[in-house]
């Protein structure tokens, strides 16, 4: 840090003070405001803070917070790792994360999809992990063909190594221009956004995880790492059991990509595996909280692909499920995406609908012929299920509301 110019040092110090004040005022963890002030005082602060460190950028529509945690944990044996653990995934958050760990030689930064080109340019990150792209709240996120196109442009000629999920055609297209890529077969379960070739627009023929364009030469590259069930095949052909403490196939997918990333820094999978297993909950996700004899498990789902993955980890039917939907800024103000989720999978379970947009949810569940009850708040749902397990799936701010209600310690 002492090698930073005077102005940058001042920017970091003032940013830190602001973060602390924001935290004391109870406004979240303060990483955004601190970074904002720092960047205002020194627009090159991110570049300066990134210098002489080995950095990983992690981007995707879904799973970037969790995978950032997995990678940071797996790299912890190398020394101190700077990371934006609170999901503040834009440059202001990156500045705070790096400023908070001045001695760290390594950094793992979750990066919003839109910011990948800019953050790559400013930090010169050594490794970029690209995991999946699917429809997200379009009133705030970008259009995904366009996003993948911007990744393509940014990676063309960049001095960085890419690790990418080759089971996702759009991610493959976005990553393809990089000078070197490690392809990982990490699975793709939501396929509604990849029926067409991103290169020529022709139809993609798909069989299992494999895919190829019928009209041009764009096809799935051969993967070096392969996920199958709970097992991973490594580039040298060994087969290992994944040892994760997070449920579901989406996390197995996150896990194999984390292994491929840390291998770039010389961490072998055998060493990384027990460190991945240390991550049991990420910012409250997957945590179970005990309340009045109920074991409430919290699952976050922000878009149709995320809902598919949340359904994958539900307790078996007829386990009860409560759903909570808001439509504030971070959720996207448009609830149309509810119609992309196939809620028929919830038939045969007791279902509660709540959140600020519970009527949108009710209209959707009714059309899917799911039996449900609308309740004014999550507490009513919790108290109406018999003591035992309850899975709760909520979108972003609804999730935060529930987390706050049942204790931030979650």
């Amino acid at each position: 840090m002492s090698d930073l110019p005077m102005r940058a040092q001042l920017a970091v110090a003032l940013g830190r003070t602001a973060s602390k004040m924001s935290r004391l005022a109870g406004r979240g963890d303060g990483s955004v405001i601190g970074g904002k002030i720092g960047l205002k005082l020194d627009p090159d602060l991110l570049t300066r803070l990134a210098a002489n460190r080995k950095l990983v950028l992690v981007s995707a529509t879904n799973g970037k917070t969790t995978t950032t945690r997995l990678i940071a944990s797996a790299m912890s044996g190398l020394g101190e790792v700077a990371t934006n653990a609170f999901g503040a995934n834009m440059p202001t958050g990156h500045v705070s994360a790096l400023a908070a760990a001045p001695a760290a030689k390594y950094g793992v930064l979750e990066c919003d999809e839109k910011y990948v080109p800019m953050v790559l340019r400013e930090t010169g990150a050594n490794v970029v992990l690209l995991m999946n792209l699917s429809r997200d709240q379009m009133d705030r996120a970008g259009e995904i063909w366009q996003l993948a196109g911007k990744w393509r442009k940014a990676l063309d000629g960049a001095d960085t190594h890419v690790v990418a999920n080759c089971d996702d055609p759009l991610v493959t297209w976005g990553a393809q221009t990089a000078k070197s890529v490690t392809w990982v077969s990490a699975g793709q379960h939501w396929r509604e956004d990849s029926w067409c070739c991103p290169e020529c627009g022709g139809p993609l023929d798909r069989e299992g995880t494999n895919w190829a364009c019928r009209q041009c030469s764009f096809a799935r590259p051969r993967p070096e790492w392969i996920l199958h069930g709970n097992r991973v095949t490594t580039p040298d052909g060994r087969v290992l059991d994944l040892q994760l403490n997070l449920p579901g196939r989406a996390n197995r997918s996150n896990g194999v990509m984390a292994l491929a990333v840390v291998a770039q820094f010389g961490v072998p999978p055998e060493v990384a595996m027990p460190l991945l297993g240390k991550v049991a909950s990420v910012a409250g996700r997957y945590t179970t909280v005990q309340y009045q004899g109920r074991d409430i498990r919290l699952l976050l789902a922000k878009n149709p692909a995320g809902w598919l993955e949340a359904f994958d980890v539900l307790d078996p039917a007829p386990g009860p499920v409560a759903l909570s939907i808001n439509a504030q800024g971070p959720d996207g103000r448009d609830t149309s995406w509810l119609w992309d989720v196939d809620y028929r999978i919830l038939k045969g379970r007791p279902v509660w609908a709540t959140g600020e947009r519970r009527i949108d949810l009710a209209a959707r569940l009714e059309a899917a012929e799911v039996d449900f009850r609308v309740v004014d708040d999550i507490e009513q749902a919790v108290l109406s299920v018999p003591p035992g397990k309850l899975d709760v799936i909520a979108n972003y701010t609804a999730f935060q509301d529930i987390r706050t209600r049942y204790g931030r310690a979650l």
Partner: protein
Amino acid sequence: MPSDRIKIVWIYPDLLSTYGDQGNCIVLERRAALRGISTRTLHVRSDEAVPVDGDIYLLGGGEDRPQILAAQRLRADGGLARAVEFGSAVFAVCAGYQLLGTEFGGEEGQPVQGLGLLNIRSGRGEKRAVGEIVGDVDPALGIPRITGFENHQGITHLGPGVRPLAKTVIGLGNGNGFEGCYQGHIVGTYMHGPALVRNPALADLLLSWAVKGPLQPINDSWAGKLREERLRAVLPA
């Protein structure tokens, strides 16, 4: 008319389905079923021929590139134009709405040739219209206020023979105080995603065109409550 069978054709879900567009299919199927009218829905992908014998055709929203591809393929295919000649109903949203016109704006704002099934012309506006939209529908259609969510950067000019679907109360719509349009049995709208969910009467208008007669009333249930809740939430008290 319990033996009636309505054929619904969802055009190019692989290109034109960004955000809940299948909700429009689900709502039509459901509102027909509640009246004992059976439906059959065909999802036609962009490498398949568009059948000419559909009763209701649905087109959804899409990004710039897929919109251009969809327009090229539909023009080359010709099936939708034939169906329109036969009097089939068409409901088109956002990108799907624009491409039915003579011209729309491409990814750099360049003019792209549309299908010319609607006498409208679209281009790119100054700013993106994102938010709730409410409109008072042309009285000739006999349906109440519409409510939806728009998310687009289009400006649409209507030519002779085309009437605006609604006069905007909230939101931008076509960009000149009106939202959407209709011409014959074609309805186009900027109400993004499943517009028929929040507007059961609009769904019934399409169904009544398909069965060529009036429909028995049904309970709008949660969809009706949603419509009221949205109107209450966005209109000034």
